[in-house]
């Protein structure tokens, strides 16, 4: 690992000022991804700006009924928070399906959103990779890509975004709050992560030196139920092969509102607008759910070894929607 400077920021302003004009600076959250990548030589920062002691570690009830989650709230605290469990169950479930208890205690909300792909070539500095070193090529396209994208990939990169939390946030229409050299701005989570296109080195639309300060949830749809389901190679402590976050409101057997997002399939959490189109005002039946999932996944372009993800994602979506449409056992 290359030596680096360290600054513990005591205010958002100080953190952003320290990063300004220093392309080699990185914000340090829990470090569970950044420190890992520094050990691998993928990240070689000259300065770490520790933001973990900023006063951004609270979950705040908003007057409109929404929630504002500080960027430093740990993944464990987020999943355990009463308003999240009660009103945004899909988010609590998504966070709890990721990583391990140890990692969730350390990881932050901001860091989770910005975690990098687990593509093996990206993590191996002895291999070419357009995301790590633009213009060197994408060995995953012909090589090991079983875990990688089936939707929205480009000839330059077929990586997947690994965060479970981000998939739930996409289904919940959450917003990312940023503070940077040019002040504050907000970006919907669904537009925060990019598709790889010609610039796979840019995972998100975050600008140099911008700090994530919070994630905001709109008021929950009180009539809706929500759920996250993840398929993986072992029962726990593994990244998603495919996952589904769904929010469903059914009245008198008809879908009043549905929000659906897939994880593990693309370079960003995949909000399934085509599926939602099919679901809107349709009878809440398994047949509708299958047609909706298929409408979305028609755009899939699987690689040699990851075609299994398409039926897997379809079946997950149908199962989750069917479960949500069934009358609740309790409460």
């Amino acid at each position, binding site marked *: 690992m290359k030596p680096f400077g360290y600054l513990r920021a005591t205010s958002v302003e100080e953190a952003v000022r320290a990063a300004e004009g220093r392309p080699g600076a990185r914000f340090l959250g829990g470090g569970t991804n950044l420190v890992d990548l520094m050990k691998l030589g993928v990240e070689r920062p000259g300065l770490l700006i520790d933001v973990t002691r900023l006063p951004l570690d609270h979950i705040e009830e908003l007057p409109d009924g929404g929630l504002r989650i500080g960027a430093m709230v740990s993944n464990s605290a987020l999943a355990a928070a009463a308003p999240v469990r009660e009103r945004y169950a899909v988010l609590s479930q998504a966070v709890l399906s990721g990583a391990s208890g*140890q*990692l969730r205690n350390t990881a932050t909300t901001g860091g989770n959103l910005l975690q990098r792909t687990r593509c093996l070539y990206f993590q191996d500095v002895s291999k070419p990779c357009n995301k790590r070193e633009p213009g060197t090529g994408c060995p995953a396209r012909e090589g090991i890509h079983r875990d990688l994208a089936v939707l929205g990939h480009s000839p330059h990169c077929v990586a997947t975004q690994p965060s479970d939390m981000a998939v739930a946030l996409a289904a919940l229409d959450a917003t990312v709050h940023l503070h940077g050299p040019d002040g504050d701005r907000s970006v919907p989570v669904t537009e925060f992560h990019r598709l790889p296109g010609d610039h796979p080195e840019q995972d998100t639309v975050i600008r140099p030196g911008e700090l994530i300060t919070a994630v905001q949830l709109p008021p929950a749809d009180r009539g809706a139920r929500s759920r996250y389901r993840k398929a993986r190679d072992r029962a726990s402590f593994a990244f998603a092969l495919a996952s589904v976050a769904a929010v469903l409101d059914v009245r008198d057997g008809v879908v009043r509102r549905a929000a659906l997002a897939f994880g593990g399939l693309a370079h960003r959490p995949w909000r399934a607008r085509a599926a939602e189109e099919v679901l809107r005002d349709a009878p809440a039946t398994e047949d509708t759910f299958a047609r909706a999932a298929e409408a979305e996944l028609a755009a899939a372009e699987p690689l040699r070894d990851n075609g299994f993800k398409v039926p897997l994602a379809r079946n997950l979506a149908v199962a989750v929607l069917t479960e949500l449409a069934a009358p609740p056992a309790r409460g």
Partner: protein
Amino acid sequence: MQPTNQPADAGGARAAGAARSGTGAGTRAGTATAGPARSAEAAAEQSSALVLHVNGTAYELTLDHRTTVLDVLREHLGLTGAKKGCDHGQCGACTVLVDGRRANSCLMLAVAQDGRHITTIEGLAHGERLHPLQEAFVERDALQCGYCTPGQICSAVGVLQEAADGFPSHVTPADAPQGGPVPLTVEEIRERMSGNLCRCGAYPRIVEAVHDVSTDQGVAS
């Protein structure tokens, strides 16, 4: 770090020992100044003075920023209980408690933990009296080679506290009552301990040992 994430008796409880400085190799007693660099210019320094409270003893250390908590424990303080299995957060062998919560010490930079209270396997027993989880691991013979054991036990200490504090897990039913302790079923223990791998496959006995203690403490079911 996160007030919402601290047990009532976060850290501190075992930190009664008088501050001792300059003990472990690599410490430079007397040179420790107030915390890390306060300006970006000063941040060009590649090492910082800091304090870590380990098993109740305060250590003043000057460390290269690259040093992880795991390396401080093993290489600087001679506490080799926490193990380096993978060094990438994947195995749990390095698990310790930081301000009462379990964490992978291999992914934590020591400088970022300045001022925190760390408990390792060496700090769990009270004199000759083993921690109930240590007792249970012996009683149940919950190990073979023992390499993963310190991490398993520290992780289990964290699990019991998290369950007592009402933290849900992936297998906690969505409609489970909130606010009180989460009953630690065998399924809960298996899920919550999944960040600790055991190459010897001692899992069944590990689950039994944790279940024994959670039953004794009234958080099992």
